């Protein structure tokens, strides 16, 4: 945070982005997946990325995570080039079933992040209990992932990510495999968790309504190769509400604009 503030002073008027894509291009196996992507994400911003399948949304997220290195151009975090994943950046994968350790209980899965950060074992239980309570899983500490529903498993993965105390949370279609009711509940929980922690979020989804409902800004990618096709600021009041926000005229206007964009890219 200190370095961000310092940069604010040096560049008056433009806040320093926490994550900055600077002409990032990624070529994998001779195929250009992402081309010349330039994008700044401000600290505390909730950015949603949408696009037709295969447009490189997930790849863009993996660049931001440091799991891929750009072929040319740069991806910076707090002004530093991303050479490898960082502990301040947590990733919530879509396939929670594969991302959790099946041989560890819920508490053990959360503990993994604390162990990686070198927290002494005596301090872990209290923190684990607190984190499980935060994501709405109190009393499930002793359960194995296989004994939990999809929604609970995804909550558990979010708890493990929060254990990293991330400055940035990257979410890759986190609710794509969940039923509508569970999804809405988790959307609201992620919003309140992020409002409380002040973390930056990049949220990839193929659900346009979800993107507008959650985001401060929505970016639509064009496929082959992936590049920015549309950028919409979402000026809907917060806190958002599943009923009134989704009926807001601005919501409907953005939804229309985004649907038209996606429809045009699919032709």
């Amino acid at each position: 945070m200190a370095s961000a503030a310092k940069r604010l002073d040096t560049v008056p008027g433009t806040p320093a982005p926490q994550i900055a894509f600077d002409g990032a291009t990624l070529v994998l196996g001779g195929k250009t997946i992402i081309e010349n992507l330039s994008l700044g994400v401000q600290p505390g911003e909730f950015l949603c990325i949408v696009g037709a399948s295969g447009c490189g949304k997930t790849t863009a997220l993996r660049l931001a995570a440091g799991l891929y290195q750009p072929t040319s151009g740069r991806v910076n975090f707090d002004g530093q080039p991303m050479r490898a994943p960082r502990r301040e950046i947590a990733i919530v994968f879509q396939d929670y079933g594969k991302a959790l350790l099946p041989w560890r209980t819920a508490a053990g899965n959360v503990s993994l992040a604390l162990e990686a950060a070198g927290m002494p074992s005596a301090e872990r239980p209290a923190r684990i209990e607190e984190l499980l309570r935060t994501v709405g899983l109190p009393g499930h500490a002793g359960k194995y992932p296989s004994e939990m529903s999809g929604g609970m498993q995804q909550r558990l993965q979010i708890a493990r990510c929060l254990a990293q105390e991330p400055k940035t949370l990257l979410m890759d279609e986190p609710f794509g495999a969940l039923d509508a009711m569970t999804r809405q509940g988790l959307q609201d929980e992620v919003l309140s968790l992020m409002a409380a922690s002040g973390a930056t979020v990049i949220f990839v989804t193929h659900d346009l309504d979800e993107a507008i409902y959650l985001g401060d800004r929505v970016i639509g990618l064009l496929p082959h190769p992936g590049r920015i096709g549309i950028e919409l600021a979402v000026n809907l009041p917060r806190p958002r509400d599943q009923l009134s926000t989704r009926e807001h005229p601005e919501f409907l206007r953005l939804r229309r604009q985004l649907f038209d964009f996606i429809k045009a890219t699919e032709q």
Partner: protein
Amino acid sequence: MTAGSAKALALPLAVLATFELWARATHLQSDSLAPPSDIVVALFGAFADLSILAATRDTLFSAFAGLAIGTIIGLAFGIAFGISDTLNRLMEVTVEAIRPIPSIALLPIALIALGFGYRMEIVIVAFACVWPILILSRAAVRSIEPRLMEVARALRLPPAQRVWKIIIPAALPRIFVAFRLSAGIALIVAVTVEIAINPLGLGAGIMLAQQALRPDLMLAYLVWIGAIGYALNVLLVVAQNRLFGRAALSGADR
């Protein structure tokens, strides 16, 4: 004992009874065969003078020591090769060149280097056990869900913790299957070394009985070795089910 296992026992028991009747009726005189009742008597005799127990101790000591050493070596290399593609390609030819050597073919060298006794036998058993553990643990590590490795990277888990907390637990069900396989091999190789040359254990016991023209005792040793092998496998299958449950099955056929 279920009806099914009772049915499975019916045929062997019928064969044994027929053989017994035939041997008694023809007053069997043979250096290689003996009526089942004589085999049972010889087995009890060998227990009574403790000779078979001492032999069992020697064989199992060699087999388990060799199995332990072979498992440790095989696991270390298997995990390293599974993690590092570079290392694996570097060592692939070497491994494939050494692996087909029958462990028993090392007997003359081991004998000259180490002489008779436990050490020589343990080395040969260990050599035999290394390969299934190495090959299967390498495959197990390679087939770990890539997402788990990404989670480890994203959490910046240090390399030692990555091996200890992610790779080994994820590969363990399949590694245990390899261990079970190697345990069987260890017993076979230990007895073979004893029959071929080493004057200790159950294998040497068979050879002694053969040279003493005691087919009843020789076959008693065979029956006892079979029982040990069977018990060892049952023990390991029970352990596998207790430890891993269904995970072991899905790991085995993946």
